[in-house]
């Protein structure tokens, strides 16, 4: 994914790898951390934990429902279980297990949705999670993490492990440039300004920060000043901070690699109700994905690339 951050070229990390490494690091410090996998360990990178701590690694077979409730049982025994599979199965196949076995009892289970959004580009609609954000946000007691790069993934996993309660962590399959401002710290619920701007605020979660930063850079060349606000956790979300960051803007753009139904778009529109600030929406518009030859190709097709963000920024400036 190409993006520039104030002209500064940065390193690249993979969220899955950073996740796996962080699990090993946390596992070394805390013997209660256990990891469950549904036969995708080489992809989710839970395999790194298996190598380090085989006794605390549970290969559950291709059985996501049992894996998820079983994780609930491990939490009942005081463990901190991380379940692993693709986001579409984590949130879909095991939805009832998350809701019933885990969330109603506030069990300390971390559900990790790997290869989220369209990032499993080749496998098509059945493997692309466009609805996981909405599904997981709808579950009471759930904290929903949507890190934007490999660096933030480590921070999110650490925060999730430290939080006593159910969590969903949404991870991308592909390599991402480092954009998270580590000096800003990491606090659950608080938006992070990746770039300052006065005309427009672009709200994103997950990987869309990359396209938004690139678009903001292009907008600046056109004389438009766009802020980029990353949302590290869709839930909880500090509504006061979201409102504050929109203050004085001509308009805001919300973009997410997830369905328009029940995602950040609806959330920001709700939070900004009554402010009169126009909202431009960008999301997967209530359709399933399909196979493509790259993640970038799909993002462009579904109008979630930098050029599409730029168009929305231009629109937001002239609104209403």
């Amino acid at each position, binding site marked *: 994914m190409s993006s520039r951050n104030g002209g500064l070229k940065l390193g690249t990390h993979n969220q899955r790898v950073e996740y796996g490494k962080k699990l090993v690091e946390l596992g070394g410090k805390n013997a209660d951390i256990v990891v469950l996998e549904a036969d995708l360990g080489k992809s989710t990178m839970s395999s790194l934990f298996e190598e380090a701590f085989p006794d605390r690694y549970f290969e559950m077979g291709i059985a996501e429902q049992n894996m998820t409730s079983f994780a609930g049982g*491990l939490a*009942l*025994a005081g463990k901190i279980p991380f379940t692993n599979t693709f986001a579409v199965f984590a949130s879909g196949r095991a939805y009832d297990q998350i809701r019933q076995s885990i969330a109603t009892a506030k069990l300390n289970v971390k559900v990790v949705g790997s290869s989220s959004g369209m990032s499993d580009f080749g496998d098509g609609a059945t493997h692309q999670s466009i609805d996981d954000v909405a599904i997981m946000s709808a579950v009471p007691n759930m904290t929903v993490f949507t890190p934007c790069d490999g660096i933030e993934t480590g921070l999110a996993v650490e925060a999730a492990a430290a939080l006593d309660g159910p969590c969903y962590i949404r991870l991308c399959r592909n390599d991402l440039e480092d954009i998270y401002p580590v000096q800003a710290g990491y606090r659950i619920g608080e938006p992070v300004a990746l770039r300052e701007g006065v005309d427009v605020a672009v709200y994103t979660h997950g990987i869309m920060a990359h396209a938004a930063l690139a678009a903001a850079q292009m907008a600046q060349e056109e004389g438009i000043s766009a802020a980029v606000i990353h949302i590290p956790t869709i839930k909880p979300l500090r509504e006061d901070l979201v409102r504050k960051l929109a203050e004085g803007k001509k308009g805001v753009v919300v973009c997410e690699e997830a369905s328009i139904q029940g995602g950040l778009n609806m959330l920001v529109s709700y939070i900004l109700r009554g402010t009169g600030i126009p909202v431009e929406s960008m999301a997967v518009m209530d359709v399933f994905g399909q196979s493509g030859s790259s993640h970038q190709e799909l993002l462009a097709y579904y109008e979630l690339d930098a050029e599409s963000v730029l168009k929305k920024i231009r629109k937001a400036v002239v609104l209403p």
Partner: protein
Amino acid sequence: MLEAVEKQRLEEMAKEIRKDIVTMIGVGKAGHLGGSCSLADIVSVLYFYKMNHDPSDPKKKERDRFLLSKGHAAIVQYAALMESGYFDKEESIHTLKKLGSHLQGHPDMRKLAGIEANTGSLGQGVSLAAGLAAGLKLDGLESKVYVAVGDGELAEGQIWEAFMAASNFELDNLRVIIDRNGLQATGKTADRFRIGDLEGKMKAFGFEVTVVDGHDVEAVAQALDQADTVKKKPVCIIADTVKGKGIPFAEGIASFHNGTLTQEQYDEALRVLAG
């Protein structure tokens, strides 16, 4: 073998549990009478003979755990908990399913001490119990995990995933108790959806299997003791039971799965149980 006095004590306790079940359901309100009464004797043996548990310290690490995968039978567990002294019987017995009550329609561990897991979405309790058993083993604890499953519930696919996992991880601290009362909500299990050769299936899934009369406290106690000698595999106790057992007009009648009692039926049930 149980001593005669011990056997009598467990039978008396089962009777108390059934009285509590009827009292909790009350008159003119829906309640899961049938599937709770079918478990009453088993629950009596678990709470008053077999399990290591302490009502004054409900979270004691070394305790044995009992989970109801068939969460709709919550009232049989509530009865055992109140008879054990986990909470005040007089204060609570008439609050079942009332707004704000800790006696929810299905077990809620966050509302009531002694409840080990939130169950009720059928087919999930064995997975929870197996995960719990695996976690206890990681900590080197000797605690046992008991999970009661309905026979109608066995149609849920996840439960067979859980059976495979229990066997795969050699969870010899897990005991699956199948309450084979032969009835589900809409009729006989044999007519509605056939489970087939349950004993053979459980053996094929890697369990040590025993079939007992689920209303014979001595047989249940013996099967539970026997389970402690099994190594490297999970244990399944198939308990043949009668839905509504102990309440003559409800015995074997599917409509008492979640039926209501008239004042006459309520009085009749308590009268029979007092005898």
